[in-house]
């Protein structure tokens, strides 16, 4: 089934160049302080959740105001994209900080026992967020290969066994999201290019997660060596690939020129690792370059990656400039 038909069948109607976000937004100062107080036991979980809901509502209102089409909840209640799931699943223990780049650190989980899905991990938040807007809200998950690759493993015999066990638990979460009403679900696999020889494992495990389920699936992949896994990576069974394009100044297009991109593409067009707010002319030029290679009806637009590394102000400005440029592009396409 063509990706557009799948959206239509799901009852999701979107404009040309749908606007979305990768997932995370920066936490406002009051959330950072509240999380720190919660860790020290100075705030109850309920009090923290009330503040997280407030921040989620603020981000949803902001996205609606600037005309984002498919919303995210901004992950005010999550820390790291792998650690969050490790904390919710049985079989993990938490370890201390490991650096990913620059001054960024994350808590890398340790698998110490069989991984078990005991209850939905994201469904309550998805429901709360969806209830705050009429626009579609994405369900946001991390894929089995990335959770495996970004965890220490002290239990399973090898990487394949770990990944396939995680695929079973992520599928249960996808099923729970769909039961709650989610129609668009993103399953991030940023680690998928790290070992090109393991791409079949990424595909096999994602197949376990998505096979036969009635939703439009995205996967977000970033900062990888795509040349080594393209075009085979498009066999990952999802409808939409959300890729960082601006970090490499659209270098990825060279791959797509050699072999056309067969699925929908959400193109990241702003760098999330710089304080600089890109000029409208820069984004327009990036999009025009992309549109020379990708058919308009296949193209969605967002930032390169989650915006949580920016300040609230920077993140908002980056999203605003994307929205302005895309709206103007839509006009020129409708004329």
């Amino acid at each position, binding site marked *: 089934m063509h990706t557009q038909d799948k959206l239509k069948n799901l009852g999701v109607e979107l404009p040309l160049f749908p606007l979305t976000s990768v997932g995370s937004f920066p936490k406002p100062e009051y959330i950072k302080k509240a999380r720190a107080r919660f860790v020290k036991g100075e705030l109850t979980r309920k009090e923290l959740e009330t503040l997280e809901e407030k921040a989620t509502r603020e981000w949803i209102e902001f996205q609606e105001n600037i005309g984002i089409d498919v919303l995210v909840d901004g992950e005010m209640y999550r820390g790291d994209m792998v650690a969050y799931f490790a904390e919710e699943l049985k079989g993990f223990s938490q370890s201390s*900080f490991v650096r990913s780049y620059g001054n960024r650190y994350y808590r890398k989980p340790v698998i110490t026992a069989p991984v078990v899905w005991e209850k939905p991990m994201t469904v309550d938040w998805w429901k709360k967020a969806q209830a705050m807007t009429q626009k579609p809200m994405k369900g946001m998950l991390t894929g089995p290969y990335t959770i495996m690759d970004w965890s220490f*493993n002290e239990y399973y015999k090898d990487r394949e066994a770990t990944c396939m066990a995680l695929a079973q638990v992520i599928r249960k979460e996808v099923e729970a999201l769909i039961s709650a009403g989610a129609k668009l679900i993103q399953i991030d696999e940023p680690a998928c290019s790290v070992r090109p020889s393991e791409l079949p494992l990424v595909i096999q495990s994602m197949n376990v997660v998505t096979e036969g389920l009635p939703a439009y699936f995205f996967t977000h992949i970033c900062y990888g060596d795509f040349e080594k896994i393209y075009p085979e990576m498009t066999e990952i069974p999802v409808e939409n690939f959300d890729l960082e394009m601006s970090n490499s100044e659209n270098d990825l297009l060279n791959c797509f020129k050699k072999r056309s991109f067969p699925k929908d593409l959400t193109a990241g067009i702003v760098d999330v690792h710089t304080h600089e707010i890109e000029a409208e002319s820069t984004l327009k030029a990036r999009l025009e370059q992309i549109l020379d290679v990708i058919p308009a009806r296949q193209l969605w637009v967002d930032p390169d990656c989650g915006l949580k590394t920016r300040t609230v102000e920077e993140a908002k400005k980056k999203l605003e400039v994307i929205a302005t440029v895309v709206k103007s592009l839509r006009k020129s396409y409708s004329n």
Partner: protein
Amino acid sequence: MKLKSANHSHYPKIGETDEQHKLRQAYHLFDRKKISTFQVVKVQQDVTREAIEEQEKAHLDVVTDGLILWNDPISHIMKNLEGVKIGGLLRFFDTNFYFRQPEITGPILRKSSLLKEEAAFLKRHTAKGETKVVLTGPYTLAVLSKISTPAYKTSREVAQALAQVLAEEIKDLADSGINHIQIDEPGFFLQRPDWKWLSGLFEKLCSQKGKAKIWLTTYFGDVAPLYARLQELPVDVLGVDVTYSPTLLDLIRKEGSQKDLALGFLDGRNTKLENLKEVVHELKSLEKKVAQDKTVYVTTSCGLEYLPQDKAIKKLKLLEEINHAYSR
């Protein structure tokens, strides 16, 4: 064979407590212009001193400065060279760690020493151990760089230019009294080198080494198929990642070694602690084939920054225990 323990290269910059977070906090404040360069440097020095102290507490024979000032193994070397611009983020091999990709924009020149100050600090603050400074090798730097200048057509030409500037750096480091200089070349696993040409490249690098021992270290790949070739290169110590290679130890047991070896027995990328007896048993099994005058350095498979600090300390302690148990 003699056994010594050595730190591989980098060491975690932060730990769990507020005090152990001081470097992260300092960068955060500096980024927001709330503290001065002088204040950041002070914290960097404190953390470097602590990294050296942890290695000395574990009685390592060879210590590094923990590469505390390095953002990543590529841009830290390349950022101060003329003819190089630092660009976007890329994943570092198959890790969840990122580096900024250099872009070669013109002829590569060394404006001043790259690591002289870091080396001097290491020497000043190392009480007992021998000192080791790490340099990412010219081959790896070249294959991970983007070329956008007519000055070089291929990564091979870039590697040759880099070997020239790194040879100058090695001379400076050797002159300053550093005992060991480690050249990291995980890039051999990205693109197989032309070995004859590579030998010339390493001759250039080693030509100015003075009294320092030059280590060639590979990791993140199965080194067994390259082992014979690596033995032919003009370096003093061959550093290899044992965890990636199911056949490497059998190969060493069969072929022996003409060089000192640094064996990465402890997995620098997994928290699980290795079995002390098994490692000592493996080391003993090498004795027949590794000549008596050769040194085997027991170490981790790669730098320790891929582990949380508490786990890194446990791996350092295990190195100490292995050394102790082996010598008993």
